[in-house]
């Protein structure tokens, strides 16, 4: 057994120096510097943060604030091998909690703890975007292990206990498949005879904007903002420098379409970014790749390198004189809120991913104050097609208000999970039929921040004018308890709240505690109608003004399930009247012990039946 001493002793500053030098001691790269340093040092002790702060000319408190914001940064010791079980509801439905317990038992550690020799630590993390091939786990915030089962967990424990390096684990464990079940135009890819990017970009920026306007394309990240209006606003904003950012922070639980687009259609995504850059006049491009997709980085860098060699990026990109545009990849570090475009830009600038005050909007003042377009991976992919086949062609697909196709990440209780691409306007019933889910009682469309659609509404269509979707489609059959689904999502939002605004910071925590009381998982009291009333209160507060969309949508699962599955709440709130979290009589036990009294008079008698 080889124990790596680096994990149990404090890492030295030299490791950070190499990383700092590679990033030219640029404070804007702080998140990348922390990430790369930690990859070598396993965790980030305060002494290292002090060193990095000094090297970057930042205060220690600032660096500590950034390190403490991202879930993938460790400011207390962890093991040489860090395993994070994906904790989406779909992973749980596939048995992830039992597998986590099995692994912990084999390794002799508790979740969230490191073993005595500093060899490994095991914990949970938010959805890793592998719901169709889960349960999954992240290794060292780098590789992913898919399709966990009892045998794989046992073999994994063997490797960990034997000290087998991750590079020597079986390749099969790391296999990630695209899982395309129904391809339409995006997942089919560009036609072999599609015009080249230089031919596309030879048109004027205005012609490109007009084409996107005609297509009626709306953003695929969830908000559905018209793409052309965003681009036009960026183009019209004053300033010499502009940026185009691809939002690949696919953090919405149950969504994994962008992973496949990046894995198999990266050229289309980069084509779309380049078209956007040409249209708005941008010089700088970023892909904000979520930390969970670190395993995609080498191949994405390869594609970018190939495109540079081909002249599609760099000075006079695509052969257009004066069009200088290149793309860099920035890795996230486990923070769902960074999917919000202004939080994403803060993170790109090396800061805590707190959503900005708007206005100004990113199209007016984004990265470093420059007008910045942020679009979803799928949006850029659509642009690559629209720029070639025309806006009218795209507008002819889908419905009048929701043009084109949409990719759905289907997971949960169905026979054939994976990706399904349909024209917008397709009914939920049709998708359920094709993925094999005859027993479905509800579908969470668009992830936890989307909508929980009960069976009575399966005839509704996925479209901006009916049920909008950011791409998740989680199926729950009749064996599932929708209360527990909502409680799981509540934990997710409380875990991911950035902590800036009062209603989200405090409200999401209060929702978790109240639902835990209903589940009898916290406190002594049984729930009553009083607790249901408090949940309605919290739902109202969070829907009435939070700083960003995370807080505003945090109670969507609660609201939807209380409305459609009220019985699940009613059966958990049957106490005749309010019962406190603490057991008042139990609180007196130490006083009884001291006074050696056991008589009835030494007990509290309440009228509350238990």
């Amino acid at each position, binding site marked *: 057994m080889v124990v790596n001493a680096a994990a149990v002793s404090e890492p030295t500053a030299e490791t950070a120096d190499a990383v700092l030098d590679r990033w030219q001691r640029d404070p804007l790269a702080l998140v990348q510097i922390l990430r790369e340093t930690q990859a070598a040092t396993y965790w980030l002790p305060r002494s290292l943060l002090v060193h990095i702060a000094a090297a970057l000319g930042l205060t220690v*408190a600032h660096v500590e604030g950034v390190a403490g*914001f991202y879930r993938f940064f460790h400011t207390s010791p962890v093991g040489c091998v860090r395993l994070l079980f994906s904790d989406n509801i779909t992973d749980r439905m596939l048995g992830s909690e039992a597998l986590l317990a099995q692994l912990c038992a084999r390794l002799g550690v508790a979740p969230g703890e490191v073993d005595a020799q500093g060899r490994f630590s095991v914990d949970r993390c938010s959805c890793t975007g592998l719901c169709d091939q889960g349960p999954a786990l992240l290794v060292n915030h780098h590789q992913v292990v898919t399709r966990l089962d009892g045998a794989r967990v046992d073999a994994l424990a063997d490797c960990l206990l034997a000290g087998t390096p991750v590079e020597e684990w079986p390749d099969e464990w790391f296999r990630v498949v695209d899982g395309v079940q129904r391809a339409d135009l995006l997942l089919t890819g560009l036609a072999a005879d599609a015009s080249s990017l230089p031919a596309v970009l030879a048109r004027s920026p205005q012609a490109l904007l007009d084409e996107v306007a005609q297509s009626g394309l709306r953003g695929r990240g969830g908000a559905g903002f018209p793409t052309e209006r965003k681009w036009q606003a960026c183009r019209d904003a004053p300033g010499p420098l502009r940026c185009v950012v691809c939002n690949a922070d696919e953090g919405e639980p149950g969504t994994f379409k962008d992973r496949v687009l990046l894995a198999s259609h990266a050229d289309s995504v980069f084509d779309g970014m380049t078209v956007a850059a040409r249209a708005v006049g941008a010089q700088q491009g970023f892909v904000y790749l979520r930390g969970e997709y670190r395993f995609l980085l080498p191949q994405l860098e390869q594609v970018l390198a190939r495109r540079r060699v081909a002249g599609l990026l760099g000075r006079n990109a695509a052969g257009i004189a004066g069009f200088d545009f290149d793309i860099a990849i920035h890795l996230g570090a486990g923070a769902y809120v960074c999917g919000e475009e202004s939080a994403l830009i803060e993170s790109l600038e090396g800061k805590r991913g707190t959503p900005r005050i708007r206005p100004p909007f990113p199209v007016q003042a984004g990265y470093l104050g420059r007008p910045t377009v942020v679009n979803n991976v799928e949006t850029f992919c659509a642009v690559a097609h629209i720029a070639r086949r025309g806006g009218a062609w795209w507008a002819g697909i889908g419905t009048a208000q929701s043009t084109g196709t949409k990719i759905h990440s289907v997971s949960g209780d169905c026979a054939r999970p994976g990706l399904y691409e349909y024209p917008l306007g397709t009914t939920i019933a049709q998708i359920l039929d094709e993925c094999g889910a005859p027993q479905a009682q509800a579908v969470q469309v668009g992830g936890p921040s989307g909508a929980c659609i009960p069976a009575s509404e399966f005839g509704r269509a996925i479209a901006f004018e009916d049920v909008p979707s950011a791409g998740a489609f989680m199926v729950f059959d009749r064996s599932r308890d929708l209360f527990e689904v909502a409680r799981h999502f509540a934990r997710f939002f409380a875990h991911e*709240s950035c902590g*800036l605004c009062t209603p989200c*910071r*405090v409200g999401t925590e209060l929702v978790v*505690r109240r639902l835990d009381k209903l589940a009898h998982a916290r406190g002594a009291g049984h729930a009553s109608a009083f607790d249901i009333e408090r949940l309605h209160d919290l739902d109202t507060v969070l829907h009435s003004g939070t700083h960003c969309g995370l807080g505003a949508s945090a109670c969507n699962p609660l609201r939807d399930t209380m409305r459609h599955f009220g019985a699940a709440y009613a059966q958990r709130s049957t106490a005749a009247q309010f019962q406190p979290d603490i057991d008042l009589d139990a609180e007196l036990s130490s006083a009884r012990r001291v006074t050696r009294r056991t008589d009835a008079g030494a007990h509290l008698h309440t009228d509350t039946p238990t």
Partner: protein
Amino acid sequence: MSAVDPSFELDGQRVPLQPGDTILAAAARAGLDIPYLCWSAEVSASASCRLCTVLADGRPVAACVTPAVAGQKVECRSASLDVQRLRLLQMLFVEGNHFCPGCEKSGNCVLQVQAERAGMTDLHFETLNPERPVDASHPDVLFEPNRCILCQLCVRASDEIDDKQVFAIGGHGIATRLLIDSPSGRLGDSALSVGDRAAHICPVGALLPKRVGFAVPIGQRRFDTEDTRG
């Protein structure tokens, strides 16, 4: 002022506008009160407390950072917004340990006076009972994190007025907390001096200059009313 001068309507009252005005700034100039905790004219806004949430043409926005728009109808005093403010205040009270009778900020505390004005008589939610160690290491300033409402006024004052960056925000979610820039993380080892604006801008009793507690008698404190003046 002529009728064509730009203005918006706040709870039915006409509020004149100047270029660059937020809803809160314009209302304050007109002598109309929109409740807030985390805003100060001295520093940039954090928009964190959300107490100043108003409905601008029906949309909930933070008045402290939302540009005022001519012709807009803004609602601040309504039954539902009154309840919303009360709930936000109650959330702040249960998040920390705000025990007014034992706090020397009592009578000068913005959280306390806003709660009183909102008619708050109970906590409504269960208390979270945090256990955050008090930092009394600084010779002249006490830091009592259990009273911190994360308004960021000290963060901004130290950065924008004192040019020191003594404070920062750390953690996330319910574990969000105020960080102090010093090798030890304690206030006594930081660059803060009692003459700094950051040492006095705290709206609650989280950052307090030492040796002046209870110096102002009840009846003469900032928010004393006829009731407390006697």
